[in-house]
Every structure is written in structure tokens, then in C-alpha cells.
């Protein structure tokens, strides 16, 4: 596909003795939000971790911007322009908010120049820069995790279940922040909250038992009650 930024073709991956991914294929198109859906344990998080190299692919092809990246080490992969916001945020609780942002910068000077624009998106963080990240609320931690992915000149963001464990009102803030980012960056989003997925997503992929089982436009999925019931239980 000519406008593909990220492509997975029949990707397999094992965790220990479990064959978790058994043929995931998907295409993330430039300047769009692609949502990865599936039940708990379907392999969504493992797909994300395989893309950034934390889980080595056991088969298949992963291409970023036309180049194969499968089998490379995580720091090499993300430096090509991928920002990863893991499930559970992965913030450094013992560091300050400011230190969390600085440790994420690939190029400290360029990162510092981008920081004001990033903090404009998340006014809470601007106020709390000197605070220890471990003392933040769940929503603020999620904002910090996303902000951390924005301090570099990333072209692709991988965001894993950002709404998990957050109060509904906080989720609304998050949707607004992610919607504002949509204009500048391509996103692959894993999200169990169907309303949020629907609000943000352009395209969707559905995976089940480690395989891609359906794909299409998000607007079509919203109408397909049978598919939603079968794979998502909604």
C-alpha cells in the first residue's frame, strides 16, 4: 500500500512456550488513527511489543516506512520515529515529571525546543514539572506517558489501552488530547473502551487468538452488531 507507514505481514511471536501471535497482519496508513481491537488475551499488547522489538518476532515481516525492522533491538527501532506508550504507562515513579520527559528525548536540544508545545497540550504537567511522577494521579500519569512520546519528532505513536483504569471524566480529557494529536502524527491505538475507539479511530483491525480476523473502516464496524458481539462482546 503506498500510504502505509507500518505494515505487519503474517507476524508470529512466542512468549515462553506460548505461541501468542499466530499470523497478525495489519497496515497503519499515514495520518490516520488505526485501532487494534480484540478480547483480553487476543494478542493486542504482544503485537505492540513485537513492533517495538521487546518481543522478537518468530516469523513474518514488519516494515516501517518501507524498511524491515523485525529482529532489530528496541532502541534502534524506536529511534526511527516511533513513540510507544505502553499499557500501564511505564513512567518512572522515582523521577520527577521533568526528568521523565528529559529521559525520553533522543536529542536533548531538539526535545527541549519541542517541550513548550507538548506542555500546551497537557497543562496539568506544566504545573507539576518538579513533582515526583509517582505522586501523580492515574490520568496525569497517562498524560505524562503520552507527552513523553511527543518530545521526539515521532511519526508513529503506538498507544496501548490509554483509558484503562481511568475515571470517565479523565477519559474525556484523554480523548480530547489524542484528538488534538491526530492532526500531526499517525497513531496505532489499542483500546477496549469502544466509545473511545469509535471517537478516535479511522480504520480498525480485529484480532482473535493471535490472528487478524477482520478489518475495515471504523464507521462500518460501529454498525456491524454481529461482528462486535462475536469478537468484542459488546
Amino acid at each position: 500500500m503506498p500510504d502505509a507507514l507500518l505494515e505487519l505481514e503474517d507476524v508470529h511471536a512466542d512468549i515462553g512456550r506460548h505461541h501468542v501471535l499466530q499470523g497478525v497482519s495489519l497496515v497503519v496508513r499515514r495520518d490516520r488513527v488505526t485501532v487494534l481491537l480484540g478480547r483480553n488475551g487476543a494478542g493486542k499488547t504482544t503485537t505492540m511489543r513485537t513492533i517495538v522489538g521487546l518481543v522478537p518476532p518468530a516469523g513474518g515481516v514488519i516494515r516501517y516506512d518501507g524498511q524491515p525492522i523485525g529482529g532489530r533491538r528496541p532502541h534502534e527501532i524506536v529511534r526511527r520515529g516511533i513513540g510507544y506508550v505502553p499499557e500501564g504507562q511505564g513512567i518512572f515513579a522515582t523521577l520527577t515529571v521533568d526528568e521523565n520527559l528529559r529521559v525520553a528525548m533522543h536529542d536533548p536540544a531538539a526535545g527541549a525546543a519541542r517541550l513548550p508545545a507538548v506542555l500546551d497540550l497537557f497543562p496539568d504537567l506544566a504545573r507539576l514539572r518538579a513533582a515526583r511522577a509517582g505522586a501523580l494521579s492515574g490520568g496525569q500519569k497517562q498524560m505524562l506517558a503520552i507527552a513523553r512520546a511527543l518530545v521526539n519528532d515521532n511519526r508513529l505513536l503506538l498507544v496501548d489501552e490509554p483509558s484503562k483504569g481511568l475515571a470517565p471524566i479523565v477519559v474525556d480529557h484523554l480523548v480530547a488530547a489524542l484528538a488534538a494529536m491526530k492532526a500531526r502524527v499517525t497513531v496505532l491505538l489499542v483500546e477496549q473502551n469502544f466509545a473511545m475507539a469509535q471517537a478516535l479511530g479511522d480504520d480498525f483491525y480485529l484480532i482473535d487468538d493471535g490472528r487478524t480476523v477482520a478489518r475495515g473502516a471504523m464507521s462500518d464496524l460501529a454498525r456491524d452488531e454481529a461482528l462486535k458481539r462475536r469478537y468484542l462482546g459488546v
Partner: protein
Amino acid sequence: MSRLAPWAVAAALALAPLALMDLHTWVTLTVAGLAMGMLIFLVAAGLTLIFGLMDVLNFAHGALFSWGAYAGFTALVLLNRAWAWAETPSLAVTVALLALAAAVAMAVGAALGVVVERVIVRPVYGQHLFQILITLGATIVLEELLRIVWGPNDQVMPVPLALQGSWEILDVIVLRFPVIAIGVGLLVYGAMQLLLARTRVGLIVRAGVENGEMVQVLGHDVLRYFTGVFAAGSALAALGGVMWGMFSQSVRPTMGAEQLIFAFIVVIIGGLGSVTGSLLGALVVGLSYNHVAFLLPKAAIGVNMALMVVILLIRPTGLFGGAR
């Protein structure tokens, strides 16, 4: 508990013996205790990085300490043969040559540290039992190599004239070498604090210790940083070895293993990963040892163990330990 409380407790422990001895004796013992504490801190400082920060139970730390002592010993012997520096009365020349020997020792320590980390520690990150077994094995190999190269017997460390004897300050006799040791210890402490708190490398290391995987996906080669930290810790062990060799005026293959227990006690008392905690812990151990050795010689060694037990009973994470 405030950050100042551990310092207050340490000060109280240091001042308490004043009730049982006259001021002159106390000052002399206290200077000796501070010097011993600083020497222990040098051993413990490297272990703070490796055990405290990286959570690697590195029993080879003692062997790296011995290797540093022997490397420094050889450098000093060769330098002495070339310039007969042990005879010079100039303190400046002595210190400069001492710094050169320390640099040689630290380079050897760092190089060995890289080998130990790459070859035997890297496969066992996160597995304490394997770490203990394999680093104990490395200790045996490294000590035997020392015996092969330098022989099994103690060697006499050349101690320069300018560092022998004592200064008399305000009627108090102060041995010279301990004063140098205190200076070196403070220098190492300052450099470590600066590096960890103020530099980008320090920031990445602190983040990597909390969550190494996340640091990788933020674009940093965490393994390279860990090798670097391990090398730095090993270089500090080697520096401790040279200083200890000068202090005891001899080197032997098992000297590191003998000091390792003190280093572990200090790192645990201070709180895992805290450089400041290790400094204070080492000073408390050094002072208690000297004060008690004067008042009740037979209890001197036991008092450190007792100290560790009491501190851990009151504060299980150590003096400066976090909630990790």
C-alpha cells in the same frame, strides 16, 4: 522521618563515647574512624552502583578490589624503581604519583569489570541465585590468577615517605595517610552525586534501574549503560583496593574477599542504591569500630553486625532507603 534524622543519629553515635574518654583520645580515634570509614566507603561506593542500583549480587566485587590493589602495587613499584619517589619529601609529587597509580588500578578494574559484566553477569540479570554462584566462581578464578601472576604470598606495598608519620594539629596527632583517604573519599562521593543527579547519563541510569525495558523503548541502549555502570563500580572497587593496600601497607589475593562483608553491611545500612546512605553507613561503621575498639577491644568486630541489626530493625530499608 526527615532526611536529617540519619545524620543526627550518626552524630549522636559518634559523640556518645565522649562520656567515657577524654577529648584528645576522642579526637584521635574519631579521625582514625573517619579515615577507616572513608576507606570502607570506597569499597562500598562501587557496590552501591552494582548491588544497590543495578540489583546484581556481585561477590566478584572483592576480587576486583584485590586486582586493583595489585595493579596499583605494580604501578607504584615500577614508578618507584624509575624515580625513587618513595624517598621524596614533597607531598605534591607524592600525591601526583599516587594519582597515577590509582588511575592505572582503576583502568584495570574497569576493563575487568567490562569482561565480568559482558561474559558472566549479563546472562543472569534478575536471577539472584545464579548471580551469587557465578560471581563466587569468578572470585575463585580471579584470585587464582592473582596467585599465578604475583605469587601466593603477601607483598609489601611501598608507602612513600611523605605519607608516613603524622601531623600534629592543635596538640592532636593526626596520621597523614588517613587524611588523604578522607580527601579521596569525599572526592569520590562528590563525583558520584554529581554524575547521578546532574548529568544525562546519570538520569538514564536512574531511569534504567527503575524500568530497563521502558528505557529501551525510549531509544536508549540500556545494556551499554549497564556495562558502563558496572565498569565504573569496578573501577571504584579497584581504587578502594589501592587505598586499602596503602593503608595496611600490604597486598594479598584474599584482601578483597575480607573487605566485601563490610561493604555489603554498609550498603545495606545505608539503604540500597543511596550513595549518601553508603557514605554515612561507612562513617558510622568506621567510627563505631574505632571507638569500641578502644573502650572494649573484644567487641569491636561484633559491634558492626549489631549496628546493622539494630538499624534494620528500626528502619528495614536502611538509613536512606526508598520505598523500592
